[in-house]
């Protein structure tokens, strides 16, 4: 039973980092990024491949954030001029491209077979092999991520991000280079998504392309919108509730093969309902443009 709660705790941590980082790009900077799962995937595969090839966890973890950031920059540079739904589509295509590469680049990612046997983290002399120790690691990384993101949001830079979201032209007219601002925000958002991917890979110890599809984006998107655009507090609450809620299905007695899709249906339904009836979310004050 205890193991179960530890498992939930770790999941909440991983999803929270993903949700907070999406909130940074989407909620605060106004970048309609539907490709966030792509960064998650890149982080997971980078970390897994590096550690499987003998590199240290610390190096792999940092590299996963770095490579994710690089891909974000590469993605944003050509798409900068795209507006609203076209940007959404370009980022959406990014998710599919990453998935397709993961599925087909057999020499690198082993395709549909995936990468088994990803080692547990070994960091500063501690082997994080037990679930409890992994939970502690997750909590530390999640807390650090939250604090860094909050620091950015509360600083004058955070104000510029929100200005860019609200009115990019106005921000430029005040002499600020919004292209650079967006690059920073997008890159940072990807770094944390990459870290989250690394944590995921080393927790589950096996990854394959099926964990990184559009389907996995829905819960994150739902969390960000339900919690409220540009509300960190809302994101935290929404993550906890949305992770815990479907778990009740296990106790009602549904079979395991149903719980997965059932959970996805709940998330999708919630997303649609929130968009229809409470587009500002529960803690947000800003509407998605």
């Amino acid at each position, binding site marked *: 039973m205890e193991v179960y709660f530890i498992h939930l705790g770790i999941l909440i941590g991983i999803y929270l980092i993903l949700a907070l980082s999406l909130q940074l790009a989407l909620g605060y900077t106004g970048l309609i990024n539907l490709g966030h799962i792509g960064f998650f995937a890149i982080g997971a595969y980078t970390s897994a491949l590096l550690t499987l090839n003998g590199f240290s966890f610390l190096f792999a973890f940092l590299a996963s954030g770095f490579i994710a950031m690089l891909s974000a920059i590469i993605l944003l540079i050509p798409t900068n001029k795209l507006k609203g739904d076209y940007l959404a589509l370009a980022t959406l*295509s990014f998710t599919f491209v990453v998935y397709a590469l993961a599925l087909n680049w057999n020499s690198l990612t082993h395709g549909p077979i995936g990468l088994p046997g990803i080692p547990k983290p070994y960091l500063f002399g501690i082997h994080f092999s037990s679930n409890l120790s992994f939970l502690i690691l997750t909590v530390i990384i999640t807390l650090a991520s939250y604090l860094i993101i909050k620091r950015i949001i509360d600083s004058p830079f955070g104000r510029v991000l929100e200005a860019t979201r609200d009115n990019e032209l106005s921000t430029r007219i005040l002499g600020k280079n919004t292209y650079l601002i967006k690059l920073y925000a997008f890159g940072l958002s990807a770094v944390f998504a990459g870290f989250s991917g690394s944590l995921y890979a080393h927790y589950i110890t096996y990854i394959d392309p099926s964990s990184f599809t559009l389907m996995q984006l*829905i819960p994150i998107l739902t969390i960000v919108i339900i919690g409220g655009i540009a509300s960190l507090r809302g994101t935290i609450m929404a993550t906890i509730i949305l992770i815990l809620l479907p778990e009740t299905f296990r106790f009602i007695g549904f079979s395991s093969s149903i719980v997965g899709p059932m959970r996805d*249906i709940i998330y*999708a339904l919630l997303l*649609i309902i929130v968009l*229809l009836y409470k587009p500002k979310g529960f803690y947000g004050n800003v509407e998605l443009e």
Partner: protein
Amino acid sequence: MSIILQLLVNGIIAGAIYSLVASGFSLIYSTNKFIHFAHGAVIAFSAYVLYYLFSVLELNFVLAVILSIVFASFLGYVMNLLVYKQLRKKHASYVILLIASVGILMLLQSLILILFGADIKTIGLIKITKGLQFWGVFITPLQILIVFLSLILLAGFYFFMKKSKFGKAMRAVSDNRDVAEIVGISSEKVYSWSFIIGSAIAGVAAILIGLEQNLTPTMGTSLMIKGFAAAIIGGIGSTYGAVLGAFLLGIVENFGIGYLPSGYKDAIAFIILFIFLLIRPQGILGIKRRS
């Protein structure tokens, strides 16, 4: 030489299928002006309905086909009624409509998983697909049927849009909704009908795809990517563009896997889509998106 011809024919067959997907989608897009991603789910679900009616309940094939197409139409109509119409009332942006449609797509996909399971299904109508051979090129009767049907459908569609009163109303709303309303055209009615007709075309696509390929729960998503890529390549907002793009995509895809491993077939569509979004979002025919 016959290899090139074979690839070309395969490309045309694929293109015919994609054009059915893309034209229904394009009709909906040009009228409603947002990207109805859930169109793929309409196709997937209808294919599974056909499977259920024909292969499980063992209904008469023609009856099953008709019911499936009606179902498809109805599903599209309901999506508009329950979700899109309500969002429009709240002046939702195109981004929100897109996100909602992605939500609907995922919802239906999961529903298919629960109802039918993850394993591959086949509609076993034609037990033996013995290929015919023309000039060294293999093609099955079903495939010939697909190409013909799609061309007929598209021709019929073209005349409908150009000549019928309703087709004109649709184009009016598509060009300028406010002016259309002033002259008495109900835009909500037009939106509704665009979903009914567009989804019916999706239903036809579902039948043919279901017969030609296997059914998987995620087929909706990948078909939607292809359909959408086709529409963008040709020029979104124009149904002719969607058809043109569809055939081009089919041909490029098939020639592509002549050189790349076949697993990359889907990836080709995604990558072409991505490139077009960046370099030429108005597509080959260069249709202006929205004024």
